[in-house]
């Protein structure tokens, strides 16, 4: 599988690489940080939203992840990509949040809290339909066990390939494939139970 959108530019690309941007951002270059945020902010936020199921928590996780990137960036040695490192922070922060929340058993309803995720580029009717589909899909994803939810979110919300997902989760690529396979079967079953068909997507 090829790596998906938003990956670091090719070495010959005129676009600055993530590691160069990170180094500049750590030195205080606001434009470099803004570029990193623009390149990866949406995927970090999407992962946080679907891993926590809570809009307010997702904002905190996203905020914390980017600032942690700056604080810990001096330790970045390039043995992982910046994006997998950033997403690893995101996963850890989201997990911390869920653990804290489980202790308080105060989890919010995902179907409500992720309802703002329609794409503003579509027309009003399409936005509504898209929003309903997104809400349904998000609700199904929220019911998955954590290991399956992570691979789905990293693959489809963050757009990572198998290798990058394996690197982010610290598991073999084969485990990623088997989790993805099981997750797809389960999601497909749940969507079909709700009367959704391929034509609706």
């Amino acid at each position, binding site marked *: *599988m090829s790596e998906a959108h938003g990956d670091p530019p090719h070495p010959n690309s005129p676009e600055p690489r993530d590691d160069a941007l990170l180094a500049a*951002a750590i030195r*205080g270059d*606001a434009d470099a*940080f*803004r570029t990193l*945020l623009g390149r990866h*902010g*949406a*995927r*970090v*936020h*999407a992962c946080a939203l679907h891993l*926590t199921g*809570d*809009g*307010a928590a997702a*904002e*905190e*996780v*996203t*905020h*914390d992840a*980017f*600032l942690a990137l*700056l604080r810990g960036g001096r330790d970045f040695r390039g043995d992982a990509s910046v994006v997998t490192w950033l997403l690893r922070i995101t996963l850890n922060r989201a997990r911390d*949040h869920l653990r*804290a*929340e489980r202790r*308080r058993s*105060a989890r919010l309803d995902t179907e409500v809290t*992720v309802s*703002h*995720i*329609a*794409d*503003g580029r579509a027309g009003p009717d399409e936005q509504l339909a*898209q929003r309903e*589909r*997104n809400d349904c*899909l998000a609700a199904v994803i929220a019911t998955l066990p954590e290991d399956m939810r992570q691979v*789905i979110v990293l*693959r*489809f*919300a963050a757009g990572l390939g198998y290798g990058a997902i394996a690197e982010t989760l610290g598991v073999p690529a084969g485990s990623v*494939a088997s989790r*993805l*396979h099981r*997750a*797809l*079967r389960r*999601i*497909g*079953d749940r*969507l*079909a139970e709700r009367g*959704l*068909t*391929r034509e609706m*997507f």
Partner: protein
Amino acid sequence: MPPHVNQHALAWLEGTLEDAHRERIEEHLADCEDCRQEFERMRLAWEALANWSPPRLPRALEERILRAQNLRTRGMRRPALLRIAAMALLAITCTGVGWWAGARSARAPSSPAGTQFLLLLEEAQWPPPAPLARAGYGEWARQLSERNQYVGAEKLTEESGFRVSQDGRMQPAARATGAALSGWYIVRAASYEEAAALVREGPHLRHGSVLIRQIE
């Protein structure tokens, strides 16, 4: 699903499966209703996810992160600001939050416009009864920012933290001496009274009190 179908189902969905394998799978699916149904369910999930529209980064959140980075950068260039904040934190934790909050605000002198105030967010209960990831703070920061009254903010973790005593020993911070702080803001205001008004506009009083200190 037989192993050869199972093994290649993902590659089929990804569109990366070689023709020979693809034909073999399709032959099997044509003859096996159970496998065809299972594969169609996976395909339904795949196509739903492939057309998924992940959320964009909310504009207010993007601005908040950029402001935090900007504050950090300015802190690198002008360490005095953070040093003052740290000193204020230390003073409060050593002296007792309640006394400072009650006694100092009442006698606070008026301050010139543009003066910066440190707002220390205190929790009424510790550990807090609800997660510190709460709604309303980003919107409050955005409103402050629109009025050019926002300077910066950070959330603290839910740990109690540690205190280094004068002899250099590090010990867990106790609840009664300032462990129950959940974050800080720095705002611009003309006076303590205006800073208090900003606090009342914000979301934190639902969760605890706020200590205001003028930054020199």
